[in-house]
């Protein structure tokens, strides 16, 4: 389907995909390292977070990091059945499967642990003591202390890590790591999605997808001027008025204009920059190519809101207002916030 909005912008798949598997390379940072070091130290850990906050993404990155199915057992607490821990151990490698002897030193990750069954927990505890399992990470929406203490007792020697949601700035980083400087979505749009989402990463992604899709379908290719320079820096991000009434067809002259028509020429131009949905993310702040210096935007900054853009009205539904430039307050990154570390942001 060629006319899907993200394909027009050069993405082969939806950049706002909510699947945990979709962008598993996103996860870096010391908080994540906290989970990893707990595994290295052979502890039993519980990671607690609300729905849509990244538990399963983190879980999958652990599997990936430790070498896949032969080193990591992925268990999934279904409601009625417990976890067949022994069965999982047996099936983890061909050798075990054939000989029936159980492997040792396996890492166990358990998703949906709010549904954990006491019998399964006891079984896990046994295999942990005997060395077949060397570390456990439980993931769930709720840590039930009574259940875990009674079944695992002293074995539950790791911490309970609670994942909090992203700060507004971190949300922007998360989105930008997926779509780069795509002008279809301004930082202000991201912030309004963040507010509406009440901080849930999954919801932020869905709302941003809605905004981009609506914009693209209405032929709006950029909603505000992208901030000059790399987007990730934690300094006040200034927003400026979009260029007023660029004549249609000349939209490619500057990137700061609001294109009325789905100018295919501009789309092609963008396509070059936004080639793939996989930016490379290192443990540091990602260096995006800074947007070209735009003298036009400098002028636009000083312009006040007296002249509203006459050429196009974005859909009222998404409340992208052009009334005043908004300054984003730099949010201090809270200690221990998963999302700060998640994006490798400087403290």
């Amino acid at each position, binding site marked *: 389907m060629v006319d899907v909005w993200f394909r027009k912008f050069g993405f082969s798949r*939806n950049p706002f995909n*909510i699947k945990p598997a*979709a962008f598993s390379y996103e996860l870096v940072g010391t908080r994540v390292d906290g989970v990893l070091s707990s595994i290295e130290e052979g502890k039993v850990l519980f990671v607690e977070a609300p729905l849509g906050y990244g538990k399963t993404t983190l879980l999958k990155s652990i599997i990936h990091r430790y070498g896949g199915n032969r080193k990591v057992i992925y268990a999934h607490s*279904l409601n009625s059945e417990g976890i067949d821990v022994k069965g999982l151990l047996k099936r983890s490698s061909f050798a075990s499967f054939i000989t029936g002897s159980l492997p040792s030193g396996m890492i166990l990750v358990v998703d949906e642990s709010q549904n954990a069954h006491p019998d399964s927990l006891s079984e896990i505890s046994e295999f942990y003591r005997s060395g077949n399992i060397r570390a456990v990470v439980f993931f769930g*929406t709720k840590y039930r202390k009574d259940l875990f203490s009674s079944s695992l007792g002293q074995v539950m020697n790791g911490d309970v890590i609670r994942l909090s949601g992203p700060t507004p700035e971190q949300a922007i980083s998360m989105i930008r790591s997926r779509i780069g400087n795509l002008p279809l979505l301004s930082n202000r749009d991201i912030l309004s999605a963040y507010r509406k989402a009440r901080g849930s990463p999954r919801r932020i992604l869905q709302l941003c*997808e809605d905004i981009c899709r609506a914009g693209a379908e209405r032929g709006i290719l950029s909603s505000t001027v992208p901030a000059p320079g790399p987007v990730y820096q934690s300094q006040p991000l200034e927003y400026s008025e979009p260029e007023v009434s660029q004549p249609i067809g000349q939209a490619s002259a500057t990137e700061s204009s609001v294109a009325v028509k789905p100018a295919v020429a501009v789309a092609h131009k963008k396509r070059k920059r936004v080639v793939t949905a996989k930016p490379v993310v290192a443990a540091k702040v990602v260096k995006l190519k800074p947007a070209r210096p735009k003298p036009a935007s400098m002028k636009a900054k000083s312009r006040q809101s007296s002249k509203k853009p006459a050429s196009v009205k974005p859909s009222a539904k998404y409340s992208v207002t052009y009334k005043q430039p908004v300054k984003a307050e730099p949010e201090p990154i809270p200690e221990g916030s998963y999302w700060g570390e998640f994006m490798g942001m400087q403290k």
Partner: protein
Amino acid sequence: MEWFEELGFTENPFDTDAAFSAQYSAGLESQLEELNYLVNSGSFVFVEGEPGSGKSVLLRMLAGKFGGRVLSVDAAIDGNIRSAVKSRVSVFGYLLGRSPRNLVALVDNAQSLSPDGFEFIKYGFDNNQFSAVVLAGSALKGIPDSILDRVGNRVVKVPFLTEEAALLMVKRRLGSSQLLEDDSVRKLYRKSGRNAKKFLQLCEEAAKSLSAEVDVNG
């Protein structure tokens, strides 16, 4: 002789079976388009509509668009859909082992899924066995939070039947036959409570009584 045969049809033109109805549907075009996008963008979707509104028909049309990549199950038949999935997927080996990718899961009567069934769907979506999931049901109530969280606002509501759509549906089904005139159709529509299935059933009753007249008159 079946009543519709007496009237010159080879099959019941008012059959409400989903596969049959999919060929003659009217009034669901924008929902289908929306679903098409949502499936192509890898979403987790809920199709909401009262019984008889056309959910199964929509799923059927969607299956048509995605061909062999689709896994259709009806949770009303088996709330723990694993067995249905296994038999479909056995060609590829055990689903959780050597797994297929990019299947589109279409689940009808989602409110009948067992807790295990929900977990299974969720697992399949998270691990990309299913590139997209469409659940169809009469209400969001009773669907677990973890599923609803993935759905978010991707809820496609099946609309009430409009008079326009009703007329169009009948025209398509009857073809060139003048069996039911527009006025009669309008009357039947007004009795239908804007429910597509009910409407078709009323049409069938009306058609049957017409065929009875044919009988009586020789």
